[in-house]
């Protein structure tokens, strides 16, 4: 959309306490090759605007894909209608006086851009991976795909703010299943969590194609492997499982709108309450969690959130102590707590809510060899494939694609269906080793669900491997 269009729209901003226009333009391209066959190539383009009004004790929004002048005026009218109707009927009416003018931009840097590579070349690349995946008659399913997303946002408000951001990300995926005696085991490329703000050259950097052979062999091995044993033991967790552990048992419970009760009918609330900030011992002193929108290439790196708050790195948990929630400007005002720039919306058709951005576990000092050699008897688990946690984010159970037993400080045999369960408040106290920067991986998931109406958004997690004591692990049905 051109600047003259925005200038025209700006004239529509009404005389109210506060008004914002958030234009979103999304482009998605999905290319998949499944069992050797190219699936229909998909292109999705999605443009619309969200208009938000706060006025005289009432709130309302109007969102539309109709970007004609009449369409935008109509959405503005709907927003005004609801803000008038909701006067004195709202849970919370914000003090908008602290909101200031913000100007700036942000653009993902793609070294080799998606558009530079032809669709045919991308298909050929995925076909080649498919050939490598189907390396044995016991491979029952195999697929590789590339998803590219480009999200351009233009924000303006009654404080004369102008923010333009363009986030583009690439999500490469591999899936391979092997069947043996009616037992099917599946390996994926990092649990589909390798989404990054990065160019096409990323695929070479992560040896995407080469990984296909080892993943296929691992799936075959797992289909013949014994079940994970049932016991309480030490567990070493790889980054592609750590991200789920962080996401579900730290990220979600720290979301301030959950703590304030907004999500109680759907995503749930939290065992964390407002009094815990600044004093609650969330985990061992090795636990350092940051909200970091500054890490280059991480999925939710940006300069502003969707309510125009300037983004900066902040510690949420430092040396095990809970410091700050994942709450945006408005939630922070409701709770009278320090906040982060996490007010985000999945698209133009949804209002902003508190979301994770990049929620990272800061690296420690241990090499991968140190982590494994520190375990006399335990298990190393990789790649999430099952996740479940209660509505307070306390009782969790996770499953992984692959387990490797550890004996006397050495990785030994693989086991299938490794699951573990625990209670968040105890689990993080048992964090006994944190891997160094060499063990760290920057990953991201494209689909984090929350909110009413529902919203699915991309979030980043960067984490090293970690060791936990005293964890209940178990396998599948014997």
């Amino acid at each position, binding site marked *: 959309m051109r600047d003259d269009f925005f200038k025209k729209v700006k004239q529509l901003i009404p005389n109210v306490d506060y008004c914002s226009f958030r234009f979103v333009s999304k482009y998605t391209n999905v290319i998949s090759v499944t069992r050797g066959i190219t699936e229909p190539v998909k292109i*999705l383009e999605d443009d619309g605007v969200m208009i938000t009004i706060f006025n005289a004790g009432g709130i309302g929004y109007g969102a539309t894909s109709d970007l004609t002048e009449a369409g935008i005026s109509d959405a503005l009218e709907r927003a005004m209608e609801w803000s008038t109707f909701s006067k004195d009927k709202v849970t919370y009416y914000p003090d908008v006086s602290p909101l200031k003018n913000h100007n700036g931009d942000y653009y993902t840097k793609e070294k080799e851009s998606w558009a530079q590579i032809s669709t045919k070349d991308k298909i050929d690349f995925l076909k080649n991976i498919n050939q490598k995946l189907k390396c044995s008659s016991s491979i029952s399913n195999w697929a590789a795909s590339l998803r590219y997303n480009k999200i351009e946002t233009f924000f303006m408000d009654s404080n004369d703010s102008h923010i333009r951001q363009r986030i583009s990300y690439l999500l490469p995926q591999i899936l391979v*299943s092997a069947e043996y005696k009616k037992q099917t085991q599946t390996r994926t490329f990092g649990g589909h969590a390798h989404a990054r703000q990065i160019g096409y050259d990323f695929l070479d950097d992560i040896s995407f194609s080469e990984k296909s052979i080892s993943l296929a062999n691992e799936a075959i091995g797992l289909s013949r492997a014994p079940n994970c044993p049932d016991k309480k033991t030490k567990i070493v967790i790889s980054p592609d499982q750590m991200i789920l552990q962080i996401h579900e048992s730290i990220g979600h419970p720290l979301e301030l709108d959950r703590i304030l009760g907004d999500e109680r009918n759907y995503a749930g609330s939290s065992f964390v309450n407002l009094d815990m900030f600044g004093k609650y011992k969330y985990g061992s002193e090795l636990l350092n969690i940051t909200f970091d929108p500054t890490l280059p290439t991480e999925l939710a790196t940006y300069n502003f959130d969707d309510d125009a708050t300037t983004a900066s790195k902040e510690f949420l948990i430092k040396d095990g102590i809970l410091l700050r929630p994942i709450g945006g400007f408005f939630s922070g005002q409701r709770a009278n707590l320090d906040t982060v720039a996490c007010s985000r919306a999945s698209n133009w058709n949804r209002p902003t809510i508190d979301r994770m951005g990049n929620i990272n576990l800061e690296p420690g000092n241990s090499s991968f060899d140190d982590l494994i050699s520190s375990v006399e008897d335990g298990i190393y688990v990789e790649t999430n494939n099952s996740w479940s946690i209660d509505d307070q984010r306390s009782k969790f159970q996770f499953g992984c694609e692959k387990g490797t037993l550890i004996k006397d400080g050495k990785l030994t045999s693989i086991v299938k269906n490794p699951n573990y369960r625990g*209670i968040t408040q105890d689990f993080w106290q048992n964090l006994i080793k944190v891997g160094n920067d060499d063990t760290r991986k920057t990953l991201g998931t494209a689909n984090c669900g929350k909110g009413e109406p529902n919203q699915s958004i991309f979030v980043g997690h960067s984490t090293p491997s970690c060791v936990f004591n005293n964890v209940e692990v178990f396998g599948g049905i014997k």
Partner: protein
Amino acid sequence: MKDYFFSISKILFRLIEDKDLLILNFDAEIGDYIRFNHSKIRQVGNVKQITLTLDFIRKKTTISSTMRLNGDLKKDTKLVENALNFLKRELSDLPSDPYLMYAKERNSTEKLTVSESINNKNITERIIESFSNLDMVGILSSGYIYRGFANSLGQTNWHENQSFNFDWSIYTKSGKAVKQNYSDLTWQQNIFEQILNEGKQKLIALENTEIKLQPNDYKVYLSPHALNEIIDMLCWGGFSYKAHKIGTSPLHLMSKGEFRLHNTVHISENLANGINPNFHRDGFIKPIDTELIVKGDYKKSLISPRSGQEYSIQHNGAEYHETPVAINMKAGKIKHDEILKTLSDGIYISNLWYLNFSDRNKARITGLTRFGCFKVKDGEYLGPINTMRFDETIYNILGENLIGLTNNQQLMMDCSTYEERSTFSSCLPGALVDGFKMTL
């Protein structure tokens, strides 16, 4: 909206040569989302979105483009023409698709559900008034939903309704809650009040002291909502023909005859309630009823046209992911209004939450209790329970350990609103189950 879609279709079809085919799918909604917390409005607004998907086919090659439209014919004509021209250019580089399949016969249909206009502001006033002394949190999604299909062979299909879905929870001061839902085509205050009063009665029982359960096997009653969560897990490939062929279906051992469910279990995909459109995105008309499990045995899978081509088998109009959209489970014989008496001593589970597989091969599922779950003793509510995790295989829940199903079915309209309002639904009884394994 219908005239607008078919006008756009005509414009595009004029640009198609005889050797080519164009398939159009139309998804739109205009409505309001009113979100509540503490019985007041938390967020509120109106959303208008129009989406058109073009599938362009030349010989055996296809490419797809989805775009948002303005709803302004003049402006959108240029947009869709540009999109079509782009697809024509891109197609030349693509390989042919051996599994491409689309309807070649013309089967035009139209379903317009006419109902009284829904006044969302009036409903919101009534809701706020009704919950004035309660701590309610939830969402009212209300307005028009449109689905359309057209292809250049001359087939047209249309599905439209105006409906609402109010989904809410009422909380006690101790943090326990009852979850309820009222969804329909017209708002009837007396029906809403009846549902709300039932919720208030349960809320009284929730005020009792919490009973802390320990991990163990329990006799439980799974309400239709709780059972729906379990059945929903089976929809993750359980009824998919493709998933069975590649070995990733959680019910693949059942389809191979190694396991079976209780012989009172009958599950089908049933579109008779008309909530979901009866036309497939490639133009096929879906059968009204597809039996999936009969008398506890796996009978049939949902087969998409694409799987039909891949595995040389007749498809049954399932969409790409072969997931049920309107699952129906036959009622049993246990009198639902005597369920507490029949349960006698056990756990009454109103809702389950956050389910996932802990051993997909053996259909073992984990998840948690949530909202309005009670310990029952001598046929009476004793008190609410703490949140408990279960880990149990479907072959126990609906197989060896199933005592029986209730004699009523409850229609549940999916309140999911990811991207757009869902048109999925399910119709299920409650289930009485013995030896239900709670693990944490």
